[in-house]
């Protein structure tokens, strides 16, 4: 990664939600979520399919408006101040958000230009994600695992302060998962990076999170530090 100037840890919380509600038509997809994640902290999102994890990540990314309640990201109110966080939030979604007909490098260079990231970062991330040999391949020709690595590289281009990761290691072989996991964990110059990670692996979530949020039908079923969570509570979340 290109050297970035060391910065002091920001005072504002990384993520602050207060009574957040998101509707899809008549249905409540997120119900009254309230939490605070300090800057530099990691929040693990757990819950069965359809619990609202991806919706919450999209709200935090500024891609969906909250229907009610407050959502502050990196100290800025969303959606009103969404322009202040653009380029500072990296979102690795289920869908890779890549142009299929363009090559891996073309996708990354295009994204780097819009993110105002140094183009040199592209080569460094290609190397870090093991994609150098496939840089000239169209994304349409890549396997799901390689596409996921390309999407991860695109997410990290601007060295975001907040990383939103939706099952980041899905589709990856063990070596690639370890490589990408280390890259997503990396905190250059000791500067804390706030992370929100959605997944289905409770053990991994408990190991790396500072705070765990369990969602069930869009409502908070569990919100605690990992040390305070029991196996029974995790089990109940998925029943």
């Amino acid at each position, binding site marked *: 990664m290109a050297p970035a100037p060391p910065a002091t840890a920001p005072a504002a919380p990384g993520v602050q939600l207060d009574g957040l509600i998101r509707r899809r038509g008549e249905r409540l997809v997120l119900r009254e979520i309230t939490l605070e994640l300090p800057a530099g902290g990691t929040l693990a999102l757990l819950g069965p399919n359809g619990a609202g994890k991806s919706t919450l990540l999209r709200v935090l*990314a*500024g*891609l969906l*408006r909250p229907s009610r309640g407050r959502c502050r990201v990196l100290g800025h109110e969303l*959606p009103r101040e*969404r*322009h202040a966080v*653009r*380029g500072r*939030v*990296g*979102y690795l*979604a289920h*869908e*890779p*958000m*890549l*142009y*299929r*007909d*363009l090559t891996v490098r*073309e996708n990354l260079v*295009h*994204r780097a*230009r*819009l*993110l*105002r990231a140094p183009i040199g970062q592209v080569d460094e991330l290609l190397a870090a994600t093991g994609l150098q040999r496939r840089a000239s391949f*169209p994304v349409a020709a890549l396997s799901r695992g390689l596409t996921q690595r390309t999407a991860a590289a*695109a997410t990290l281009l601007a060295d975001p302060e907040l990383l939103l990761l939706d099952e980041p290691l899905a589709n990856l072989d063990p070596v690639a998962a370890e490589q990408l996991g280390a890259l997503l964990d990396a905190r250059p110059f000791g500067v804390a990076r706030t992370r929100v990670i959605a997944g289905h692996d409770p053990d991994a979530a408990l190991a790396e999170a500072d705070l765990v949020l369990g969602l069930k039908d869009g409502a908070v079923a569990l919100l605690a530090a990992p040390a305070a969570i029991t196996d029974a509570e995790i089990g109940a979340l998925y029943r």
Partner: protein
Amino acid sequence: MSAASAGWGADVRTLLTLEWRRERRAPQVLPTMLLFSVGAFVLFRFGLQDGSIDGTLAAGVLLVTTLLAALLGIGRLWSAEEEEGGLDAFRLTPASAAALVAAKALALWSFLVVLHLVAVPAFAFLLLSSSLDAGELLRFAGIMLLLDLGIAAAGTLVGAIAAAARSRELLVPLLAVPLLIPVIAVASQAVSPLLEQHGGSVEGRWWLVLALYDGVFLLVGWAVSDGIVED
């Protein structure tokens, strides 16, 4: 030039380059529009009584074909943004929504200009009974450039609105045709004297109306770009 406007210009260039690169890599819009236009001219060639037209009828055939071909381009203009997540990726960057809308409009405009560079000679060869001198050709090109800009400005808005809908293929013609009828009608009035057997001149008011139409839709596009891209 301020840093903000330089950044805006660079974003438009980046996004326009993407449009052309994607079209070069996997041609969709241009071949479809070209094939449709030339196919329509061939049909008219055999469908019309003596296969040779001029004046108002020639203007009508050329511009209605342009309108229908443009609908194909408008329908595909925002497809990658919706289908491949390009819009979400864009919304995570600091680039302005107006830059994206401007790049889309410029892309559609350039596709229409390329379409006319090929389709108009085909039209002249297959159907046109009159010929244009250099001055008439210049005026004709000017009208077509203004027409294409109007179609691109209005079409970009329609394409963006339709892209989020499930029945995009139905919505594009439903929204675009009523919006584009005025510009097609004005352009037809403007070019028909040029396509007469003995030539003619374009009335000044048609230039003005075309420029006004373009200006209004460019302004509307700029004003609503944030709403289109964000919501």
